[in-house]
């Protein structure tokens, strides 16, 4: 579409606004990297052209009549108010158009039902508010959390080009292979959607659903959770990196090695300074959205950590609520399955000694002991 004068003025203005430096003035779909996506977009464009033609006819008649059949130009009203022939004609013509449209639409719909064998199956589990992925065959498992720092969201630091569309651990898949995504959810309904791959599938707690795609080109595809899932719904993006087969294999190998050896020494005794420093990172990645920077919280749903009953009370109770979630407040999730022993020990140390100053802390080994209790 030709860029109008107004749009140009606006984009000049936007150049002056730092937040708009990446403005794109998109008018249509993000180009899809899958054949099916390209087909969907082609049918969409076809439907749009049909609509353009219909609107020229309908609006043409409407505006012609507005211009010519007005009292101010001296037009006298006719008195017809019925004509069965014309009514039949304008009922039949839309039917014909719709039937003509139904053919490509049906063909497209049947093409989306593709249950043939897939090469790789990945389970995507929606959590409040992150995605968990599991490569069923390879046994690779990881969580994928928003990587955009809070400071960018709050406007303290400048936003980068992948603002809100970046994660710590992206999904990596090989190009040209059929990837099947099984979706499910841990708490509420989420939706796994990546426009560039033309996929969108709700993730429903208690049930699995499946959707497949085959990316034709190497690249990074970004999407977002597309079903309202609570407070941080806008902050759980999906990033899929489509890579060559070799790169995929080495990525899998690397993931398996990491999974085999924890990045911390489970039996080491860490100093409180080490734990607090590590814990601050964990806190900013996982806790800050609700409990806020400095642990001030948003009472009553998200209680304060600073001076809070739990973070200054018994350390066993503190560990219990982080490990198992809150019995009273459903918004407090159980972090046991998500964070490592080291992360838990660190975040507890940070909450007790960084935000508060209780002086006590736990070692990763204590967490491991509590888990098997």
């Amino acid at each position: 579409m030709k860029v109008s004068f107004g749009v140009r003025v606006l984009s000049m203005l936007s150049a002056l606004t730092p937040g708009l430096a990446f403005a794109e003035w998109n008018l249509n779909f993000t180009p899809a990297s899958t054949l099916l996506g390209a087909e969907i977009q082609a049918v969409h464009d076809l439907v749009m052209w049909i609509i353009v033609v219909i609107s020229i006819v309908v609006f043409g008649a409407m505006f012609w009549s507005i211009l010519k059949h007005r009292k101010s130009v001296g037009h006298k009203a006719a008195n017809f108010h019925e004509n069965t022939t014309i009514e039949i004609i304008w009922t039949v013509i839309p039917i014909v158009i719709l039937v003509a449209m139904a053919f490509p639409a049906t063909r497209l719909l049947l093409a989306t039902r593709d249950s043939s064998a897939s090469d790789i199956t990945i389970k995507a589990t929606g959590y409040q508010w992150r995605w968990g992925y599991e490569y069923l065959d390879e046994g690779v498992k990881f969580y994928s959390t928003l990587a955009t720092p809070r400071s960018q969201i709050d406007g303290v630091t400048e936003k980068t080009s992948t603002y809100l569309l970046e994660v710590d651990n992206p999904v990596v898949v090989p190009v040209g292979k059929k990837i099947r995504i099984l979706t499910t959810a841990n708490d509420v309904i989420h939706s796994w959607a990546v426009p560039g791959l033309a996929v969108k599938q709700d993730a429903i707690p208690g049930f699995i659903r499946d959707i497949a795609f085959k990316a034709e080109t190497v690249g990074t595809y970004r999407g977002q959770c597309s079903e309202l899932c609570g407070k941080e719904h806008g902050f759980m993006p999906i990033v899929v990196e489509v890579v060559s087969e070799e790169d995929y294999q080495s990525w899998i190998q690397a993931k398996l090695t990491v999974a085999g050896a924890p990045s911390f020494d489970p039996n080491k005794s860490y100093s409180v300074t080490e734990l607090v420093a590590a814990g601050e990172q964990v806190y900013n990645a996982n806790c800050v959205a609700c409990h806020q920077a400095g642990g001030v919280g948003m009472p009553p749903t998200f209680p304060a950590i600073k001076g809070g009953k739990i973070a200054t009370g018994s350390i066993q109770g503190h560990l219990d609520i982080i490990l198992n979630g809150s019995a009273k407040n459903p918004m407090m999730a159980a972090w046991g399955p998500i964070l490592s022993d080291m992360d838990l020990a660190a975040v507890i140390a940070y909450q007790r000694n960084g935000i508060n100053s209780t002086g006590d802390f736990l070692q990763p080994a204590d967490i491991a002991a509590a888990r098997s209790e």
Partner: protein
Amino acid sequence: MEAAHDHNHDHHEPTGIMRYVTTTNHKDIGSMYLWFSFMMFLVGGVMALVIRAELFQPGLQVVEPEFFNQMTTLHGLIMVFGAIMPAFVGFANWQIPMMIGAPDMAFPRMNNWSFWLLPPAGILLMGSLLAPGGAGGVGWTMYAPLTIQQGMGMDMMIFAIHILGMSSIMGSINIITTILNMRAPGMTMMKMPLFVWTWLITAYLLVASMPVLAGAVTMTLTDRHFGTHFFNAAGGGDPVLYQHIFWFFGHPEVYIIAIPAFGVISEVIPTFSRKPLFGYASMVYATGSIAILSFLVWAHHMYTVGMPVEAQLYYMFATMLIAIPTGVKVFNWVATMWKGSMSFETPMLFAQGFLFLFTIGGFTGIVLAVTPIDIQLHDTYYVVAHFHYVMVAGALFAAFAGVYYWLPKWIGKMYDERLGKIHFWLSLTFFNVTFFVQHFLGLAGMPRRIPDYALQFADWNMVSSIGAFGFGLSQVFFLYVLLKAIRSGEKAPEMPWEGATTLEWTHLPTPAPYHSFETPPDLRS
């Protein structure tokens, strides 16, 4: 229940505020409905502006995400249940008795109750913001199991919906009974003005669909507090079931909002074209078929939950089918204008705005009817744009047309024509600035109900926010136009509109007396 004309003897009627609390007069109740809906419209509008202010730029500047979700939820609920529906019930109260030659509504006292249920419901809805944890941040669709996690605000919203539903059902029963039983002699069904027909059909839709919503929210309530597991997989339920029940109500609801708007437009266009409505009978049949079809397409709102391809095909075809009766209506309106002698006073301008923009909303409806395209656009701003074209440019513009059209009859004074036209052009411009660009955002993949967004969406969001504030201010201007007309409007002539043919214009003085048609007019000829 006392008979409709028992209260002729008005020498004991209270005055002041008590007049409105105790009134059983359809005109008083109609006015209260209209003012109530206008106030709720402004409240819902302010919430929309909070949303648009937050979305003006990427990043979180104005509100927290939780409050943002509460705003989208309450904006939806208030606009649908508090503003648009009561506005058209207000029109029904004022107009239906006058248009069919009845002295009042069939059940005047129930009419009073149906109105006075609304303010408590409105207070509960808004009061939920003050509950611990705030209102439910679940979207107006209130999907389980997100609703299970919410605080007390959610329960307040559920009760508000119960009350609003009760009010709607009572109002509908009243309307159906009035139309079927109280027409003047000679006012046969196929002679009724189209506005009356559309309301008859709408009232049936309401009686059939509101109780289903009441069921859905009651199940949510018992799941929350009384250990039932309707929507919880762990107890043998299914969260998807909620969506089926909700949309079984939700799709007819869309037409509950749109059909009375069709009725208003079908009165305004012939009047200002000075030509009878084209294809009256086919308009009635088209409206009826839209109503029936509306019960058969609900799952097209939920393709992404996953459903068998056979079901997807069925819902796709059924949805496409709706385009046919809707098309017939648009063609009939254009044919009514064709070779007429049109003049463009404010009501007609709004009717033309309706016709143009509602048709665009219909077109995007056809795009969304194609299942694979819908899945791409589901829960994006494309859908937001689509339903605002239908609800704002459709229902709201029709309500404006109706207010300007009937205001002289209601208050006996004229609005300022120049100001009315300014209101129209401001609304039209800013509406499109706000919502047309949202199509682009949706196509680019921006999800709805997010408080912050990626940088590639920044440009159109800024445009949309500017438009929204312009649109909001235009409605404050509308309030000024209204107050000016009420306080110092010129006296309306007996027949302000040359082409009006319905009973309220031909058989009653302007302004309409407090009690009209106490002896029904004889229309047999």
